[in-house]
């Protein structure tokens, strides 16, 4: 009897435990769903030609993620990144984003770095009606006019044109009037867009084209190109180049003695500390685009705190030690997406997309408001000149005075040293 009675108690105890566990599971279910991570997916250039920037951008995005999670996440959910190395190969991008959406089931996607890597994502997000935050794409939405594409680079409503507009405005403002221009750039998506815009702008500046040729991205020696440009004796030289080409162009210009009155334009890479500390005074006089420089006119709230955090980790991660070029924008891109998700109070693509279209956002790179094509409603491409660089000490590039802002006037922090040769003295 005792045994039977005990056995009966065991059965009831088991049933009770099961019922208790079931009730607990039901009670906890909504809580665990609410706390499930909000997943943001992307491909990023962690190897290949754009990896130096891609890895720096990833570090900036991770700083944002950690800060957001420290403050309770988004919509009460911790933020989680799912990312893959796109190897700087546009061909690998469709596979990555299909996997992110179909297998990893991410809640949002953002782009990797650069025009060439954003272009293959566009058809995928358009087909699925997804929000896409773009990181430094030049005119990726020009032909699509997709309503939920938002690009963080401040190129404005006419990105291809705006990119070089200030450069040619500066050329047009010189006295005596400048007459001829040479254009060159790499055979790739970004330089092609930049050159297309430049061809439009130079007409308004009244310049005659005396050289207009592109080169393969694998070019090793730029001296024949620079020598051919020099032979046309242009007043202005506009270059749309990727980092190694930019270095090749600057070195070749010094070797060949190319000294137009205005030289620069769209040279990617000269903004990186790695190149600044090696090229040093060879950069003097170049007039180039930029998006943020450590000048007093661009001291936005939060930017210095971000750079402090970034720079503390940069050396360990083997990325740009100053991080002035891309990292603040990668961080700002995530700030915008985060504010939109919180503002829309939803992870629904349409709700967030509409919120992004309607609202303005406070970021470490200033106030961001998108126009109808997903670019900034007002452009803020800076035209800077490298000035007074002495030696190759890294410290001089951390503060103001070496990349002074010439245009737009509202952000101006210094005056043009003209012509180019004058700044080399």
């Amino acid at each position, binding site marked *: 009897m005792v045994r039977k009675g005990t056995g009966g108690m065991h059965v009831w105890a088991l049933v009770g435990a099961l019922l208790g566990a079931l009730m607990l599971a039901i009670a906890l279910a909504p809580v665990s769903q609410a706390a499930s991570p909000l997943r943001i997916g992307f491909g990023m250039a962690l190897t290949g030609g754009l990896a130096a920037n891609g890895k720096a951008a990833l570090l900036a995005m991770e700083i944002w993620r950690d800060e957001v999670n420290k403050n309770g996440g988004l919509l009460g959910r911790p933020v989680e990144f799912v990312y893959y190395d796109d190897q700087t190969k546009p061909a690998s991008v469709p596979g990555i984003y299909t996997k992110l959406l179909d297998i990893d089931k991410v809640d949002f996607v953002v782009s990797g770095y650069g025009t060439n890597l954003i272009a293959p994502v566009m058809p995928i997000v358009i087909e699925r009606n997804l929000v896409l935050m773009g990181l430094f794409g030049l005119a990726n939405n020009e032909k699509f006019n997709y309503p939920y594409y938002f690009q963080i680079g401040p190129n404005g409503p006419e990105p291809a044109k705006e990119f070089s507009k200030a450069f040619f405005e500066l050329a047009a403002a010189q006295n005596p009037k400048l007459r001829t221009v040479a254009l060159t750039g790499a055979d790739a998506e970004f330089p092609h867009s930049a050159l297309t815009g430049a061809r439009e702008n130079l007409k308004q500046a009244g310049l005659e084209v005396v050289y207009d040729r592109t080169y393969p991205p694998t070019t090793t020696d730029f001296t024949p190109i620079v020598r051919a440009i020099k032979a046309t004796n242009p007043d202005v030289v506009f270059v749309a180049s990727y980092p190694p080409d930019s270095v090749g162009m600057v070195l070749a210009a010094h*070797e060949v003695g190319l000294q137009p009155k205005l030289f620069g334009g769209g040279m990617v*890479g000269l903004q*990186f500390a790695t190149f600044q500390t090696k090229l040093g005074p060879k950069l003097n006089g170049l007039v180039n685009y930029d998006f943020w420089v450590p000048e007093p006119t661009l001291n936005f709230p939060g930017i210095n705190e971000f750079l402090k955090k970034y720079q503390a980790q940069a050396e360990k991660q083997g990325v740009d030690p100053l991080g002035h070029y891309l990292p603040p924008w990668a961080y700002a891109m995530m700030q915008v997406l985060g504010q939109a998700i919180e503002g829309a109070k939803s992870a629904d693509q349409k709700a967030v997309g509409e919120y992004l279209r309607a609202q303005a956002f406070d970021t470490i790179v200033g106030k961001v408001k998108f126009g109808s094509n997903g670019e900034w409603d007002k452009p803020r491409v800076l035209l800077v000149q490298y000035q007074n660089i002495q030696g190759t000490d890294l410290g001089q590039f951390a503060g103001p005075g070496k990349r002074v802002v010439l245009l737009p006037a509202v952000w101006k922090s210094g005056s043009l040293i003209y012509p180019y040769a004058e700044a080399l003295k």
Partner: protein
Amino acid sequence: MFSFDLLANAVVAGILLGGFYAAVSLGISVTFGLLDVANIAHPVFIIAGAYAVYAVHTAFALDPILAGLLFTPLFYGLGVVIYRIYYVSFERAGEQSLRGLVFFFGLLFIAEVSLILAYGVDYRMIEAPYIGRSVSIGPIGISLRLGVPCVVGLLLTLALHLFLAKTFYGKAIMAVSQDSLALRLMGANPIQIKTIAFGLGMATASLAGALLIVIVPIEPSMGREYIGRVFAITVLGGMGSIGGTLAAALILGVAESLTSTFSGPSWALAVSFGILLLALAVRPSGLFGR
């Protein structure tokens, strides 16, 4: 735009570029041309050589070319180890053709990822007194950034040519490339000779890496850009011909430079590979092939 000054400068720039191309192609000329080992990982070892030079240059401010020279014994040893693994795993079993190719493909990725882990993905550059300067001889300007690598490339080619033509081991390497069975019948060990030759090919990578970082900024994955070019030069020159490699490198360098100067740089690669196709159609064994 045509002028004789421009033409002369383009030809000289092409020769300088060709000298550099010869230096980066010599390793492939030995391993692929003489030993028939398709070491497609060779360019990434050139990048590894460039990083080694960068490290030593940054730490001790040593001249990059000198640093590259100092690393040659280390790269020779690396080549010996790699060939031994390749021989034991593939060549001995007669599976060198496809599986061997996969082995070198894997090696390429492993070496590339190792460089990323060690140095990160940021671009690396060095400073040297001859970077960004030029000298003029009459109307011709010579960029020292390319002139110095060209001279070193020419000296390296000459040294390798003399080694293969004049020394016992050099002649043995030439013999093993012609008929390894006959060499075995003479009592020599072809595997040992091939190991030395492979090590020699790899040793050129550190010096070629030094030349590369003098000319352009480097990053771990850029070796892939050179795979097509170095194999094209080796094949155009004639398999196993060191002099042919130099001639082919100079031809491609000058063709690239002339195209860049006069017809638009976009055509430079197309013209180079067009020359390769044309030459192979007329002379399938390459310019100086046996």
